[in-house]
């Protein structure tokens, strides 16, 4: 049996190698760093510049990986596609991937060397695994083709943010979305009518929140005043990250990531799960659990269960953002209890002071990777100009977000945007027969993000703009410095990261829920130590020092 098997395997091996060679063929040598474009200028404009409408000199088409959102599934007859071709002479050929598994397919396509030219919806950090093999372009080498991108970086002073993207070679590989200002969206959503009934002010600090919850508990002893959501699959997703994480300067939940946090005082990186700030955050939550103010199920229940508790009056406080407030909380609550009123409260201030950002936050959004093979395309320059126009120019951003003036929106003399009467979007024109995303393809998460604060807020309601005003007045701490790992370091680090993170996450919940006493905190840190915490942090700090020395 085995003999024949082996012979068979040899034959198959040969066949496979042939296949593999076919699909990865065309391996070219050293890449030139962005000077010689003579063979890649087809369709490009020679005089492309800021404020200039991009239009390819000949019709061109680019392949693009498309993240298909179930709320507005892709349609080929969207005005977006036809108008885009009309304005830019570019036809996009989308390779459609369901949103649910976008990351898996992207990783597979790049891994198999079959990725489309334009790969959007890549969050900073997700590009790192593909750097070593050279499957994606170091886009920082080609910024000269992108005047709008460079302009926005300079105008909004985004250089420090961009530096966080740099890899060990000093270049970056993803074109991020750019925001003019920090954008705080997640916070606590509170039953305002209960506050009024109890004669309480809107809480400003975490202590105020604590007192508010106590007062609620006193009035409604059978309730858990605070029952939270966003705990599957990451417990305390938003609560430990955007809400308390920002208040303490140590991010858990969605923000835990690799578990490293920039310590401003020590000017080096520390392991988040062992930081004093992180401990304080857990202690605060533990107090809430102990006083029966915070529902212990907050960290394991599904979103629907948390919302049901809010709607049925079993809880009064929940994490949320502008979108969930309007779409998921208010409508059912209004039906269940017409007198109930909900609102986002300004992010409660904690030990870190009144800040809107810390080392973990940047003003970058998810962005675009470019497949290596695009560099060899004769339309490469045109493609970069096209990307620059659609994603980074003012006109392109307005087009992607609002659509076509006179058809989907109008603008008054002061420049204020107004949706067309028969078009709805985020509940701005309830009852309108058409939808900006579903029927026209604008405000599509693949094409429309980032931009000026004015553009961002152009779709906000008045109460949301009020919230943003309060938040924008707060201080911004600079982002953490770059600390790119080399290829071997990354492989080592990834082996340490997961066990460390698992242990920290597991104990985070144990401490909060009182399954483990804070007397054992030192023992817990020792356990992390046994899982190579110091070695890991040293690796990161060495990378930081090395990068500082090499790239200033």
């Amino acid at each position, binding site marked *: 049996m085995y003999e024949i098997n082996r012979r068979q395997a040899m034959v198959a091996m040969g066949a496979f190698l042939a296949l593999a060679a076919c699909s990865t063929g065309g391996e070219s040598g050293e890449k030139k760093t962005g000077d010689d474009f003579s063979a890649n200028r087809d369709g490009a404009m020679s005089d492309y510049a800021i404020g200039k409408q991009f239009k390819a000199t000949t019709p061109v088409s680019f392949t693009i990986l498309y993240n298909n959102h179930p709320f507005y599934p892709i349609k080929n007859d969207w005005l977006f596609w036809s108008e885009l071709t009309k304005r830019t002479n570019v036809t996009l050929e989308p390779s*459609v991937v369901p949103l649910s598994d976008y990351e898996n397919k992207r990783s597979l396509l790049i*891994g198999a060397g079959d990725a489309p030219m334009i790969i959007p919806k890549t969050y900073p950090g997700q590009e790192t695994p593909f750097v070593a093999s050279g499957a994606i372009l170091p886009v920082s080498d080609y910024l000269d083709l992108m005047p709008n991108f460079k302009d926005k970086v300079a105008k909004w002073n985004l250089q420090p943010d961009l530096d966080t993207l740099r890899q060990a070679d000093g270049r970056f590989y993803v074109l991020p979305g750019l925001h003019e200002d920090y954008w705080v969206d997640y916070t606590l959503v509170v039953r305002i009518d209960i506050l009024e009934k109890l004669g309480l002010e809107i809480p400003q600090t975490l202590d105020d929140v604590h007192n508010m919850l106590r007062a609620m508990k006193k009035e409604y002893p059978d309730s858990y005043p605070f029952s939270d959501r966003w705990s599957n699959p990451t417990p305390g997703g938003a609560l430990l990250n*955007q809400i308390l994480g920002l208040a303490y300067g140590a991010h858990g939940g969605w923000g835990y990531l690799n578990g490293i946090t920039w310590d401003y005082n020590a000017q080096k990186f520390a392991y988040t799960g062992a930081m004093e700030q992180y401990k304080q955050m857990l202690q605060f939550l533990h107090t809430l659990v102990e006083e029966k103010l915070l529902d212990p199920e907050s960290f394991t229940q599904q979103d*629907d269960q948390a919302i049901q508790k809010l709607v049925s009056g079993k809880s009064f406080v929940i994490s949320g953002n502008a979108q969930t407030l309007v779409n998921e909380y208010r409508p*059912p609550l209004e039906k*269940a209890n017409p007198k109930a009123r909900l609102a986002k409260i300004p992010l409660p201030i904690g030990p870190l002071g009144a800040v809107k950002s810390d080392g973990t936050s940047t003003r970058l959004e998810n962005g675009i990777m470019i497949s290596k093979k695009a560099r060899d395309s004769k339309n490469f320059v045109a493609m970069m100009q096209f990307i620059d126009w659609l994603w980074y120019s003012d006109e392109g951003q307005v087009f992607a977000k609002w659509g076509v003036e006179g058809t989907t929106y109008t603008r008054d003399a002061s420049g204020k945007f107004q949706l067309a009467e028969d078009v709805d979007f985020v509940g701005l024109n309830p009852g309108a027969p058409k939808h900006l995303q579903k029927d026209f393809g604008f*405000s599509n998460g693949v094409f429309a993000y980032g931009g000026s604060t004015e553009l961002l807020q152009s779709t906000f309601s008045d109460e949301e703009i009020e919230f943003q005003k309060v938040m924008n007045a707060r201080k911004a701490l600079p982002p953490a410095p770059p600390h790119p790992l080399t290829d071997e370091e990354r492989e080592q680090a990834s082996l340490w990261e997961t066990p460390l993170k698992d242990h920290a996450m597991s104990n985070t919940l144990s401490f909060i829920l009182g399954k483990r006493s804070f007397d054992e905190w030192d023992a817990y840190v020792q356990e992390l130590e046994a899982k190579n915490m110091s070695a890991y942090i040293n690796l990161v700090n060495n990378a930081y020092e090395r990068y500082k020395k090499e790239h200033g």
Partner: protein
Amino acid sequence: MVTVDNTRGQRVFRVVNTIILTLVVIVTVYPFVNIVARSLSDEFAIRAGKVNLLPVGFTFRTYEFVASDPTFWINYRNTVVYTVVATAIAMFMTTCYAYVLSKKHLKGRKFLIGIAVFTMFFSGGLIPNYILISSLGFKDSIWAIVLPNAISVFNLLVMKAFFEGLPSELEEAAAIDGMNTYGILLRIVLPLSKAVLATMVLFYAVSFWNSWFAAFLYMSQSDLFPVTVYLRNLIAGATTGTSVGADATDMTVATNIKAVTMVLTVIPILVVYPFVQRYFVKGVMLGAVKG
């Protein structure tokens, strides 16, 4: 079954059996009733946690809404086509091979079984599979879905066990009459194996009907997706999408829409099953042959 056992033990057994099976029925049917109720309910009622066994705020609107999406129907049609073609191919391949493997006198039989069993444990990774399919030019075509899964080793071995259990006299008699192997398989063995064929058709059809991964990997246009990919995007999209936590402007799909899509995708299998089930009726086979 003419004799009725009337001993006390029999009666006790029957009562206990009825109770157990009633419990099984209740426990299994509950979630399904719940989903049907959700599909017919008002979204707000679901959010408030009011919907349990009966619809609250009864409405057909969600069904109309889902049915009005052309992509849903295109994907639905794809699912039907993929399932039918894939099941036909799979039945052909599996029957042939299982029949061969069931012949104990065949030289090299162990090796042939080994080839199949080995693949239950060792498989290529995602990337080699993807490269293979795209090199064969199967991307964005039905072949990418129907060919790579044409034999399930599990089904193959179950079918082989059935074939081995068939009495060999009839086959031997036919062989003496000069019928060749193909004729024996087609005219003697298959008619005797209706129960196993029905089971296999059901197993294959359901697995192809429910499969989404192959389509997700190899299809890049939404017009080619089966309805499972559509459904998965609705159901899982909400959870994985928000877990990234950055897309605040993205919205989730209402729970009643998910319920409707789910009901609509399960129904066909429920409709088909009773027809298949006919073949499970006790004692048709050997009794008839022997009689």
